[in-house]
């Protein structure tokens, strides 16, 4: 047995509903990196998760050769640096800086999407406004006319970072009975979403919509009940 040939062990701790976990799954699959996926029960977190991410106790966590890395964007950058095949960031420093700007924008604004199902009344309206503003910025400033993806002809880390907008927003807004992502108002964004979800690797790795709705319903009921107590 040639020890020098031993495969590096990559483990991903995740939760099937989390868009942040899918960011990492897509990056690993796009780069054809073999990994072991461990589904975490977030109501009963494993000792491995608590030990690997003691600060936030959240998924996703990537464990590479026993070394844990937390925070999906930090993980994506690490994956890009260790496994440069099928690059997910531009090599030109300026274009990379612009990509990192949009990835940070996605990180900062995406939480408003989950607030849509976690709140009601004024709070929910505020979250809807924040989502609208995020979509506006993407439509006006982020998506270039004629470009299929943020990454050009192929998806890159920016497209992946906007996962919540591509899949979760549609499901959550329908569930909440809201109309935020309207195709006539956001034509470029709507095309982008269709294109993004048509990429085979993405299409084959998306959480089931019915399962999502069932879980969102349960979570919303629990959260609103807790609030009224």
């Amino acid at each position, binding site marked *: 047995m040639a020890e020098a040939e031993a495969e590096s062990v990559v483990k991903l701790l995740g939760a099937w509903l989390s868009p942040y976990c899918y960011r990492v799954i897509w990056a690993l699959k796009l780069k054809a990196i073999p990994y072991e996926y461990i589904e975490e029960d977030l109501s009963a977190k494993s000792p491995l998760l608590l030990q690997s991410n003691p600060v936030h106790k959240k998924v996703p966590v990537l464990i590479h050769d026993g*070394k844990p890395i937390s925070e999906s964007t930090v993980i994506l950058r*690490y994956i890009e640096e260790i496994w440069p095949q099928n690059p997910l960031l531009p090599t030109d*420093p*300026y274009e*990379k*800086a612009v990509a*990192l*700007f949009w990835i940070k924008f996605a990180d900062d604004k995406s939480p408003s999407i989950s607030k849509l199902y976690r709140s009601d009344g004024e709070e929910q309206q505020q979250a809807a406004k924040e989502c609208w503003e995020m979509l506006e910025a993407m439509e*006006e400033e982020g998506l270039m006319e004629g470009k299929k993806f943020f990454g050009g002809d192929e998806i890159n880390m920016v497209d992946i970072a906007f996962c919540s907008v591509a899949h979760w927003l549609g499901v959550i807004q329908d569930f909440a009975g809201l109309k935020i992502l309207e195709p006539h108002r956001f034509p470029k964004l709507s095309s982008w979403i269709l294109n993004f979800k048509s990429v085979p690797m993405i299409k084959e790795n998306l959480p089931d919509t019915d399962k999502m709705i069932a879980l969102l319903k349960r979570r919303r009921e629990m959260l609103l009940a807790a609030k009224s107590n």
Partner: protein
Amino acid sequence: MEEANKVRLHGTWRSPYAKRVELALKLKGIAFEYVEEDLNNKSPSLIQFNPVYKKVPVLVHNGNPIAESLCIIEYIDETWKIGPRLLPQDPYRRAKVRFWASFIHQQLYETMLTVMKTAGEAQEKAINQLLEKLQVLEEGMQEFYPDEVPSITAQNMGILEILICCLLGPYKLQEQVLGIQIINPETTPRIFSWLTAINQVPLVKDSAPAEEKTLALLKFVRDIALKSSSA
């Protein structure tokens, strides 16, 4: 119009985010033009260069604008491979530093802002959160400084030093205005030595605004917070 290799920073002395970029440029010895923005009367350039947020800092290099201080700092580190490396070379260590940069940026900065801008119960809650998070950072420092905190110089300051300096460098003045202790040398000895060492670096001292100016700004922010909370 000679834009080649020209570096311009749009900032304001009041913004710790702009200060981060200013320090990064100075640490690397990069010559730059500084434009002080009046945030109540933003220049057309600023709005054009940062249409999404319309905020400082914005770095303009070779006529190309970059926004978001953390993105700017990474760009600076990659483009000018001189002076101290602001992030480590090793990918795993880089990941650790990025994790803690994100922690300081998201958790500490936001909580500190809440402490500055609220009063009464809301402020008490924020103060407790801040102190808890500082404890988390104190323990976390063992990841990037497993032994003692090293002696900090302009040659070895990195992104984490920049971030903590721009937030809590003036901690003594902040404590004075808020009337609370933020950095306790007994409960957070590492953070205390770290800040003390950073504040002694000549470049950091020279870049800080005069104490009276900072004090006046902190008092101004506090006064607004107290007025709006009693209204």
